[in-house]
């Protein structure tokens, strides 16, 4: 059993009310399923982006135990 770290940024951080949480996992789990596991009652906003270990991924991508997964809105830097 290993931890998957879950991060939220910007408007998603405010929507969830926290910047970080975690779940325990014994095997790979889809990014969408990670969201559902930690936020069972909140739908992920449609324009949201996902990163696994600081690289862009999709909701279908598999998150491994020990990974860091982040959910955030479209980026607006520069």
């Amino acid at each position, binding site marked *: 059993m290993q931890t998957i770290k879950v*991060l939220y*940024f*910007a*408007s998603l*951080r405010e929507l969830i009310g926290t910047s970080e949480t975690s779940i325990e996992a014994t095997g790979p789990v889809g990014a969408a399923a990670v969201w559902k596991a930690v936020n069972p009652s909140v739908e992920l906003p449609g324009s949201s982006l996902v*990163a696994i270990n*600081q*690289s*862009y991924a999709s909701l279908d991508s598999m998150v491994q135990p020990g990974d*860091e997964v*982040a959910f*955030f*809105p*479209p*980026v*607006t*830097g*520069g």
Partner: protein
Amino acid sequence: MTSLIRVQTDALEPWQEIAKFQTDNFNGHTDFGATATFVGTMRDLNEGDEVFEMTLEHYPAMTEKKLAEIVVEAESKWPLLHTLLMHRVGIIKPADPIVLVAVWSAHRAAAFDACRFLMEALKHQAPFWKKENLVSGQSRWIAKNTPGIS
């Protein structure tokens, strides 16, 4: 070849930073014929509303990784000699510089192209988010960037 990437909460003085980067690393070098730079500065008006200040949030570990990746990508596409990329985070006030991109190359086409590429890649890929605090007292997250092509 020197590349410097920096994300900072301190005020950014772009022209001083460019001059210092050049002096520190390759002053008097005779291999670059072209320097192209871009500076993005905070305006106090957005979508018709007066903006009092902005909060710039980022995802530090990913920002670092992503900015390094886009610099490597630019260096693979164009024969760049040096690259400087700086970005503010934290509380930003109108007229504050937010972002600085500067590239040095032998010829101007590569410098112009790479500078613009870096700026667009940064805006579309680097995990920064802007929240505007309006003069009216309201605040809002910026939903998306303005287009880079007119």
